């Protein structure tokens, strides 16, 4: 019996079209747009100005607070302007435009592929380096990693969970990274364990990636204290709380941090970035992105510099298919639909998905028949049908009482509703309103 989380969950068609495609390096774009807000928390503050010449890996914006992250230039060239442009959020966001000239890296960055296993830094030094390198959670939530590594006073982590679940349909970037960079990820995991001072790490991988499970089980033996757990395929297992429940059986309390139950979760991509930042001095300037879709000529996995417009990815995968109806940054369950191909790849972009016209339109919503499927699939044990009605009718006190703030916006309810009701649309709206009410109450 494979482990999994207990409450709810769905199993959308996997459609992992780009599985097993080796990671290719995407050619450098002519210019990049690097938004200053690529993470959860305060936007970063630009430290370069128009006309400055920057090298790859050079810091161009420093973090704007504790919960924030540095941003580094992903290319070498000249800063064209600091202006706003649309990004995956659907709004104009401030960012730094750089015209690419050559590809000159900072001298201290080691660009070789050579594996470096040994390290002699202590925990604080590791955290400092992670913070300097601007590493954020690469699974999509983009929470600054150094913040996770420093638990609040009185709390202590005892287990590190590495998220190799990749439960979103279509996406394969983590899977492919695991297949190609197994040792690097394991070294990164050791580094994170050291930083957190934990004795045990578990890598959770869903059972639809048997090759990765085999590979990691074999290699992890050499590193010690790292276990690999095969998990039953179920969405949203990649959610932090669900993964902790699946691996350890502990439930993060409502409104609490994962470290409250002694667990810290980090994505495999983040582990790899940590490895590169510490062993190779390489800040977070590129990431693996899946470009996929049923009509896409060549679904593939690319290593992409941050700030590259997604149009280049689409070109490299064989061009925009004729009947594209929707472009999604991220996976189909939680990704954001974008309006333009000029949207840049940011730290949180795990994939770009092109949907056909037929797949893009929702069906018309009809009356709720109270089939209770939304209740049975909700991984947080909520009642989406009720929360939707309460949000729609603006009864926010009851929505709060029914734990609307616990919603993780995984979309299982809308996915499963046989009446095609826009449950999550309204719940997200209500969540925003209730959040506002709670904030004003605290003041």
């Amino acid at each position, binding site marked *: 019996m494979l482990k999994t989380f207990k409450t709810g969950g769905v199993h959308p068609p996997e459609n992992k079209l780009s599985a097993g495609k080796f990671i290719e390096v995407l050619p450098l774009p002519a210019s990049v747009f690097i938004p200053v807000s690529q993470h959860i928390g305060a936007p970063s503050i630009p430290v370069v100005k128009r006309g400055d010449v920057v090298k790859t890996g050079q810091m161009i914006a420093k973090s704007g607070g504790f919960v924030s992250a540095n941003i580094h230039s992903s290319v070498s060239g000249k800063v064209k302007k600091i*202006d706003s442009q649309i990004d995956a959020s659907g*709004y104009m966001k401030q960012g730094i435009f750089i015209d690419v000239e050559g590809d000159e890296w900072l001298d201290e960055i080691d660009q070789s592929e050579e594996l470096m296993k040994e390290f002699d830094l202590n925990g604080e030094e590791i955290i400092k380096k992670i913070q300097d390198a601007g590493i954020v959670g690469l699974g999509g939530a983009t929470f600054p990693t150094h913040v996770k590594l420093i638990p609040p006073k009185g709390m202590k982590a005892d287990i590190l969970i590495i998220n190799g679940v990749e439960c979103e349909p279509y996406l394969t970037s983590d899977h492919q990274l695991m297949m190609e960079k197994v040792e690097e990820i394991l070294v990164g995991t050791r580094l994170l364990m050291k930083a957190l001072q934990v004795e045990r790490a578990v890598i959770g991988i869903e059972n639809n990636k048997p090759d990765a499970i085999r590979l990691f089980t074999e290699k992890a033996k050499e590193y010690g204290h790292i276990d690999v757990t095969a998990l039953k395929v179920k969405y949203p297992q990649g959610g932090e709380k669900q993964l902790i429940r699946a691996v350890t059986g502990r439930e993060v309390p409502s409104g609490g941090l994962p470290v409250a139950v002694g667990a810290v979760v980090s994505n495999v991509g983040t582990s790899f970035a940590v490895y590169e930042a510490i062993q190779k001095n390489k800040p977070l300037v590129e990431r693996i992105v899946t470009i996929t879709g049923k009509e896409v000529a060549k679904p593939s996995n690319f290593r992409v510099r941050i700030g590259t417009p997604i149009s280049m990815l689409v070109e490299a995968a064989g061009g925009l298919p004729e009947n594209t109806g929707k472009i999604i940054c991220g996976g189909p369950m939680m990704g954001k639909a974008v309006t333009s191909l000029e949207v840049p790849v940011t730290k949180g972009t795990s994939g770009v998905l092109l949907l056909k016209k037929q797949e893009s339109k929702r069906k018309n919503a009809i009356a709720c028949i109270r089939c209770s499927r939304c209740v049975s699939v909700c991984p947080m044990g909520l009642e989406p049908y009720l929360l939707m009605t309460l949000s729609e009718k603006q009864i926010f006190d009851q929505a709060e009482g029914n734990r609307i703030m616990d919603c993780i916006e995984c979309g299982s309810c809308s996915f499963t509703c046989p009446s095609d009701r826009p449950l999550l649309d309204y719940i997200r709206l209500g969540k*925003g309103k209730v959040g506002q009410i709670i904030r004003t109450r605290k003041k």
Partner: protein
Amino acid sequence: MSITIVYTIVTLSAIGTSAAVILYFVAQKFKVYEDPRIDQVEEILPAANCGGCGYAGCRAFAEACVNATSLDDLNCPVGGNETMSKVAEILGLEAVKKDAKVAYIRCNGTCDQRPKTNTFDGVGNCAVAALVYGGESDCQWGCLGYGDCFDVCDFDAIELRADLGVPKVIDDKCVACGACVDACPRDLIELRKRFPKDRKVVVACRNQDKGGVARKACSVACIGCGKCEKECKFDAITIENNLAFIDSDKCKLCRKCVSVCPTHSIIEENFPPRKVKVEIEECSTAK
């Protein structure tokens, strides 16, 4: 038979009497004094319960009025000065004259001015759309057009205009309760001073992008050029974040700014048609 009737009457009378006694003492015990003026004030109020005064309803507002020592901060936008002076009379206080206000939706991005660049396929609700992205046009500041303001208006003072894509306020019905101001996720609606005959001069735009970007998204966008600011003799116009704003308290409705605006983002409404100026100018140059 007759004894049954007697018993019935006696029992019922006993129950009735004891209940009355108990009720009397309970009523004495839990008696709450209520200022009779609250009822009087409530009588005068429009009973719209719109919340425009900032209180939960007309009753709550009446209580606030009665408890207040001055009426400076209390105003019923629906009833206006007339109602407030009556309230002041009852309470023996002084009512402050406040300018009547009217809501205005500051977006003129109608379908032909603001080309549609994508389709939104979610719940037809401005707040939901605003959570997702900038909207169906390239302007991320303008009206989303799903009518959240229309939904909250208790006075039928907002009409949805499918032909325009932007709702319009019906001045005659608007009571300036401010419900729509809070409902609009784009902060487009402003309560402006109500001028005679509902005349207005207003910047019908909230686009804070740079001129070029704004203009590309919408042909009637304010580009923040500042011509109106220079033209205005009453310091009513300020430019901030590439956007002009006309302070209705200072505006004298001279309409000079309307003529100089290169993108026609300043709008005049309910004025008689302008005289043709071309001839006058010719005369003056002839002098």
